[in-house]
């Protein structure tokens, strides 16, 4: 029964571009695209923040790097999507490796601040690259084209862009659901809940956290590359700390350490923006009140409202990650 419902939902999601076209609501396809990209980015953040207990406030940096990797290649005349993907993975992965290797030596509040610091450095770097838009950002005139045998998937077509993003999200969610009960997943949860104990049990805690951080960075980079294709633009603001904050808000809103948390948060936040934005220019004002209500009354996030007790991996043990001398 559950399987059938899930299959129907997946079919509906895949058919959405044609449904919207049939209803004359093509305009909403770009909203659906934005939601998918944000959902992938938020899910990747949930991996480090929720499952890893590592509160990174610099996640937008990897999204931005993915966007710039694609955008710069396009403006140099390269439209081969596979090259874009390779460049995105190389840049985002390398950045995540370096930033993670340094940041993971700190903990608690200092981890938050140092990830933020690295993201700000990249933000200012993006501002200064005059050759690629500088502070005005980079307009991307062509799109990634993925050659699959005789088939060429050009992301310039919003429907193709949507289906590709949907496929990436589906694979991500499937992998995340498989990750949680896996050996790696259980080790990560053990480190999150008590890293000293996990280390005493023989887990290479630093290396596992670094792998988790890099995987999340790679996924965020892919989200950024998709976002750049979908918007035809990437700019310094893609890396700004308020963007990192927005992804974090999506994760907390949807549900920390839940498979669907990032998706739920992205859907709700962007739909709120859209609905409130149609009604008032002060949509952020009312969104703020909704978020406050969630903090005060739905402590486990939106997914938490629907999940049965004991089925989720539990709230993040952020407190356990603080240095002992900071505990009250």
């Amino acid at each position, binding site marked *: 029964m559950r399987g059938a419902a899930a299959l129907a939902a997946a079919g509906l999601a895949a058919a959405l571009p044609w449904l919207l076209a049939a209803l004359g609501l093509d305009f909403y396809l770009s909203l659906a695209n934005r939601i998918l990209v944000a959902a992938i980015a938020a899910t990747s953040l949930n991996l480090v923040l929720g499952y890893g207990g590592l509160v990174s406030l610099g996640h937008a940096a990897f999204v931005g790097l993915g966007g710039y990797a694609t955008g710069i290649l396009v403006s140099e005349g390269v439209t081969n999507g596979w090259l874009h993907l390779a460049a995105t993975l190389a840049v985002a992965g390398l950045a995540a490796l370096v930033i993670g290797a340094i940041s993971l030596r700190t903990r608690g*509040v200092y981890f938050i601040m140092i990830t933020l*610091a690295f993201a700000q450095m990249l933000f200012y770097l993006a*501002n*200064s690259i005059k050759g690629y838009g500088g502070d005005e950002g980079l307009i991307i005139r062509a799109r990634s084209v993925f050659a699959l045998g005789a088939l060429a998937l050009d992301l310039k077509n919003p429907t193709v862009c949507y289906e590709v993003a949907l496929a990436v999200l589906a694979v991500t969610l499937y992998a995340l659901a498989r990750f949680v009960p896996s050996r790696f997943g259980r080790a990560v949860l053990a480190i999150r809940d008590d890293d000293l104990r996990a280390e005493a049990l023989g887990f290479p805690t630093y290396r596992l956290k670094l792998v988790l951080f890099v995987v999340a960075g790679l996924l965020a980079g892919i989200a950024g590359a998709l976002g750049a294709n979908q918007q035809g633009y990437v700019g310094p603001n893609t890396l700004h700390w308020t963007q990192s904050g927005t992804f974090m808000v999506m994760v*907390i809103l949807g549900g920390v350490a839940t498979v669907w948390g990032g998706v739920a948060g992205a859907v709700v936040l962007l739909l709120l923006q859209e609905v409130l934005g149609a009604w008032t220019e002060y949509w*952020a004002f009312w969104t703020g*009140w909704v978020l406050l209500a969630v*903090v005060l009354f739905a402590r486990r996030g939106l997914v938490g409202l629907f999940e049965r007790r004991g089925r989720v991996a539990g709230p993040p043990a952020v407190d356990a990650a603080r240095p002992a001398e900071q505990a009250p």
Partner: protein
Amino acid sequence: MPSLLVVEQALNGLQFGLMLFLLAAGLTLVFGVMDMINLAHGSLYMVGAFLAAWLVGLTGSFTLGVVGAVALTFAFGMALEAGLLRTLYARDHLSQVLATFALILILNDGTRMVFGNDLPLSAPAALAGPVELLPGLQYPAYRLLILGVGLALAVLLWLLVQKTRLGALVRAGASNRTMATAMGVDIPRLFTLVFGIGAALCAVAGAFLGPLLAVQVGMGENILILAFVVIVIGGIGSIRGALVGAILVGCIDTLGRTGLQHMFRAFLPPQWASAAGPAVASIAVYVFMAVVLAFRPQGLFPARG
């Protein structure tokens, strides 16, 4: 770089650092004592600046406007603490991030509703001209006023924290909150007051920086991150650390901007140099923080002993 320019830029750096200190002082106490991440601290700076611009326009007097804005922001900060932030102290950092991020959205758009996207605020006319500090060194009188106000407030705050009963209670709370409560300190009430003072200092910084930067919605977001960098460098919870960190960050940022530009001009085309200078200076602030954390993970002046 000519030496007079260095002196001028050093003064600018000191002035920016002192204003950063006003922001960081409240932030470091809330962070250090209540272990609370308040992303909305920059919004108090914005609210203070808007109130100042509005009151200056209304009364026609810069002094009256600033005093009124500081008083109103003080009251607003205390109401915010008692009404909302207090309930967040016991929650985890993630809830605090979500709630205070929501507050940024509310306060940004709320300000836009009431005052519009920006307000004009100019320095008092009497201080519009320059003053000759050294032969050949002209320095704007208004910037000297900021320097004076910043120094005076830093001294006042130091006296308040080091020499008064209130300050002793705050220091006790910062060093060990549980023990201070056990000794009979009413930490919640004390903190409503401390938060109000922090908000008032934000308003001072907002009002005085307003004519130099711009009074606009969103002005708090970038400076908030610098204030966080300051308190991490100085040691979370330490007022002295916040002062030292703020002046270091202010000088690195300001001197870096012009100094590096001069340096880059030697080997880069001018338009590249003028873009790279500020970017590298901004990055230098974060590199400095990373280096401090690498050698002194608790910051320069750890508050907890």
